[in-house]
């Protein structure tokens, strides 16, 4: 339980910390990495709840359409849980690729929701930013995942997949 609280608090701190940094054209999305990770390595309900909390927090703090990120993060977590039965993000390359794909999917969800709620958004700048963010987030993912694993190791927590996993490893 402690590791869940710590993980959530760390993620919230990361979100706040990222908000304190200067505005950059592209920036990593640590929430997305955490959501992808918990979807794969944690129990699905725990993962979904954490994803919802983080998404909701993102919505409240970043001023986005309320529910947009909670919807996206919950969706991504579920997708990660479903795909996690086939792919396990063990190597750095697998983590990078998976997070990049999830980042693109996230952007797709966001764009769809914006369109659905009639919020005008130019497609080309959005795609450009989405790809940039995806690359940066993907490159950042091995670092963050390593940090999470270190934290789990310190707290003597074994996630479900690390122990006796028979899944296909990328």
């Amino acid at each position, binding site marked *: 339980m402690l590791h869940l609280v710590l993980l959530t608090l760390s993620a919230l701190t990361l979100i706040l910390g990222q908000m304190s940094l200067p505005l950059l054209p592209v920036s990593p999305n640590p929430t997305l990495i955490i959501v992808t990770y918990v979807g794969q390595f944690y129990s699905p309900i725990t993962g979904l709840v954490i994803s919802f909390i983080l998404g909701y927090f993102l919505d409240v703090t970043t001023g986005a*359409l309320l*529910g947009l990120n*909670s919807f996206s993060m919950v969706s991504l977590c579920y997708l990660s849980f479903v795909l996690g039965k086939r792919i396990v993000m063990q190597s750095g390359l697998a983590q990078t690729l998976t997070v990049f794909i999830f980042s693109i999917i996230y952007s797709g969800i966001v764009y769809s929701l914006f369109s659905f709620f009639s919020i005008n958004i130019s497609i080309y700048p959005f795609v450009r930013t989405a790809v940039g963010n995806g690359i940066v987030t993907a490159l950042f993912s091995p670092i963050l995942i390593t940090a999470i694993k270190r934290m789990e190791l310190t707290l003597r927590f074994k996630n479900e997949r690390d122990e006796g996993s028979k899944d296909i490893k990328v």
Partner: protein
Amino acid sequence: MLLRFTKKNKVNLTFLSLLIVSILQMSMDAKKRGKLSMLDELLLDSASIAQRGITSSYQAFRDVWFGYIYLIGLREENRLLMDETSELRSRINTLKEAGQENQRLRDLLSFKETSGYGTTTARVIGVSPLSSFKTIVIDKGLIDSVGNGMAVVSNEGVIGKILSSSANTSKVLLITDRNSDVDAVIQRSRDSGIAEGGDSGLVQLKYLSKNADAVVGDIVVTSGIGGVFKKGCIIGAVSRVDKKAGLMFQYVEIEPAVNFSKLEEVLVITDSHEENGR
């Protein structure tokens, strides 16, 4: 049955319920854009408190970081300024030296003009490293008409005489050397003796009769006898007088007028020797 269905599909149900909550949130927010619920406001306030802390920590970190980077730059700038300061100090020193040299040369020139001697200005280029031989080397020699036995003086007083000369340099025997002897008189009483080099850099006035009037502080000058030094060149001041019983002469020590440790330029009297030679 419902319970079994719920238990079997609890993941999907959780997922769906969270999605529905999100969609509801979006729908409500899209309708009244910018209006936050109480929960949202509470969360935002809590987040802003935390964010203020994080921002101030980040700013503190940034200040330290940029301060450090700035300090690295400052260190480099400091090094450059130190180099520049060092160079400027060196230049100031050179200018000071030139100024002092100028003053010394002016004094020498003034002495040269008032003395009426034929003189050559020479620069001290070496000092004997052996304490038992009190000599200096000057940068004028036979080419400059500087030869053996010529008197060497400064505006302060007598220095010595040329011991040997090469084409471009000459060795000067200082009056403080044991082998040096100059005919001298006490300026006030006109009692005469021979000024010879003594121990510890002093000059001894020898062969001064016991009846001679010599007191500490008396100025001793050259007598002009012997022809090397012209009459009236200052040798120094009497620093000690000892009239020992049973001796013919009194013991008189002279503190040289010239500070030999600070000699840089000297005047070689060239015409007195010629006169003497004649």
